[in-house]
């Protein structure tokens, strides 16, 4: 048992930290989020050039051959800076699908472009009626010739406005919520029949509603097994959950540090508010929530390769812990900052909103408590 980082991992963390400190201060991030584009291609290019997108992609496919621990380190630092470029969608989710489900040909073709930042993906899985059930799909893919024709609507596809390709889950057989019959496709966003409506999200990111109307793809657009895609989707979303957990600990750390710092300088009734015992204990609870979240992030990261039930339990446990901790820390950071914590000007509200969104992504606390219980 070993919880230490390798020298390479420490270097990785330091270099990411340094880059973000220099180029990704809060005001810049706020401006970019509000800009027409909503992201900075040059930042994304930097990620690619410095191996962040390929950190966990095998060397054979253009990556650095690292592990989920590298992803954890990057995601945590990205969480501290509230990075909005689509790291999760590409380095974790798209790469994750290809690594676990892609054929050798697909890996050779597609992974290097992810590592290199040339191809940008978004993951179109949720549907308006489906909530967090990954199998609840009304989007269909019917066999036509050698390929498939896709029809359906995908909801809140985060990062889709930046993407050139979509990873789409669709039903090739079975009933609306059956475990069998789910297939994963890669669809060009520019393909005929794909239409998107873009909008900003509350955490400064962008998303789209995606409609697929008789979109035809070839047989090679399938990742993994036809009809057997659910297990793959579950594996990749569990990996995404681990990365989100790491991201959330980065955000929590900033909120905690900011709150402690603020409480030392802000005076009320002539005393720094950090001297009020009630707020001290509240900040201790914030600290404990954070530490417990770090612990569970290590746990889920290290258990991603365990057998399915163990991995799922780990992911759901992590999602519950960070969901609760994120809500508590976010709310209390705002409360202790008082009115200032409510403003758009201070970073507090932005971390608060990001943590709020993270709780929703891939299922909130209630969803994962049920999933955890069903696995026990």
């Amino acid at each position: 048992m070993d919880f230490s980082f390798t020298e390479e991992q420490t270097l990785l963390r330091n270099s990411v930290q340094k880059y973000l400190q220099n180029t990704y201060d809060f005001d810049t991030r706020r401006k970019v989020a509000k800009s027409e584009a909503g992201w900075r291609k040059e930042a994304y290019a930097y990620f690619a050039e410095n191996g962040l997108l390929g950190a966990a992609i095998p060397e054979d496919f253009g990556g650095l051959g690292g592990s989920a621990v590298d992803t954890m380190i990057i995601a945590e630092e990205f969480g501290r800076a509230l990075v909005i470029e689509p790291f999760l969608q590409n380095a974790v989710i798209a790469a994750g699908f290809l690594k676990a489900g892609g054929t050798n040909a697909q890996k050779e073709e597609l992974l290097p472009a992810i590592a290199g930042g040339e191809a940008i993906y978004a993951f179109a899985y949720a549907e308006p009626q489906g909530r967090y059930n990954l199998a609840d799909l009304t989007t269909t893919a019917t066999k036509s010739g050698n390929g498939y024709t896709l029809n359906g609507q995908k909801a809140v596809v985060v990062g889709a406005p930046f993407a050139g390709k979509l990873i789409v889950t669709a039903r090739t057989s079975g009933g609306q919520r059956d475990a069998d019959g789910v297939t994963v496709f890669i669809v060009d966003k520019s393909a005929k029949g794909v239409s998107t409506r873009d909008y900003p999200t509350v955490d400064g990111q962008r998303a789209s509603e995606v409609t697929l109307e008789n979109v035809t793809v070839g047989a090679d657009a399938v990742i993994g097994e036809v009809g057997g895609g659910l297990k793959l989707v579950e594996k990749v979303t569990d990996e995404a959950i681990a990365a989100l957990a790491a991201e959330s600990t980065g955000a929590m750390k900033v909120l905690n540090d900011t709150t402690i710092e603020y409480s030392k300088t802000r005076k009320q009734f002539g005393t720094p508010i950090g001297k009020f015992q009630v707020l001290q204990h509240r900040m201790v609870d914030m600290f404990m929530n954070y530490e417990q979240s770090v612990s569970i992030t290590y746990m889920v990261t290290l258990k991603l390769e365990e057998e399915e039930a163990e991995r799922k339990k780990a992911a759901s446990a992590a999602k519950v812990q960070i969901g609760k901790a994120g809500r508590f820390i976010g709310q209390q950071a705002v409360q202790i900052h008082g009115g200032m914590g409510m403003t758009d000007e201070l970073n507090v509200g932005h971390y608060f909103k990001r943590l709020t969104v993270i709780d929703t992504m891939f299922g909130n606390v209630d969803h994962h408590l049920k999933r955890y219980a069903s696995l026990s």
Partner: protein
Amino acid sequence: MDLNYTPEDEAFRAEVRTFIEENQPQHLKGRKRGEYREKEDFLAWHRTLYKKGWLVPSWPAPYNTVTWSPTQKYIWNEENARAETPAILPFGVAMVGPVIYTFGTPEQKERFIPGILSGDVWWCQGYSEPGAGSDLASLKTSAVREGDHYIINGQKTWTTLAQFADWIFVLARTDKNAKAQEGISFFLVDMKTPGITVKPIIMMDGGHEVNEVWFDNVKVPVENRIHEENKGWTCAKFLLSHERAGIAGVARSKNAIGRLKDMLAMEKIDGEKLIDDADFERKIAELEIDLTALEYTELRTLASEQAGKGPGLESSILKIKGTEIQQRITELVMEGVGYYALPFSDPLAHNEFAPGPEYAEGVTQHYANMRKTSIYGGSNEIQRNIIAKMVLGL
């Protein structure tokens, strides 16, 4: 002890309900997608009530044209919440108005009260200052007497809807050497006076509700000072303790839970109605039970007021529990809509496109915005300090 209203109260309720039905501005009922209120929208219901004579039943003669018992006021609030009428802005009728009729000179009353009642003059509140928070008395804004005028310098913040205001009431320090709560005076200031600048504060929900108000050598005539010089804290305290009715927001929270349940009946989880999900069932039951207890706590306060004992310091309970419940409702609404909690609905410019069901619009922003309720009006921590000291004697 009984729970029944008197026949008179029931008759009153019927009268109120009919009046509201016939007169409420229908286009302002509740909250609608993509609808942002203009200045006149805030005033429409105010003006209707003024015409009816039902605007200020809590005011004394000669201003009130009706006098309602605490129970009737409670019924009035309940019926307004039920019908989702627009809230009446408190700055004139619930704040500066009572200060003026209590501490003002006859000339001041004559000059200012009519505009407050008619709604023709929009007031805003110059209390809070940067870095003061719930510690109001630590204010730094100064008013220096120069002949017939005071020269006001300083900055106020969290000034709600100052962007629409004609006048502002201001607490300013007139004696720098006095202790915190002494040496403060209460001024009425025309917002058009040179030297006043209003700067918007954008909140994390993207909305523009509050402002900074800067005073740069603002000349205020002596006759605009209320009460004696250095007695402003008396006015401030009076204002803060005045009119806490409805602070618990029970009736509005009941309505909000009703809307939440309607929504959960439309949302699906694994093909079933979300309202039948065990977690939601439990959370809503807990919420409703808490609210029921709070309702009866409010009724007990009301009864004690009715009995002439006045609302006790227990009103801090109403504030704490009331805001906690309001906040929890916004959490459940947000949880209820799943991924459609993500889209940002810009309150400053209509979105080109609003994804998801109508009831989902802006729910996370509303959740974020409602965090303010445990901060403002004396934070919930301050309320607990008050109970500890004043009620428990700790």
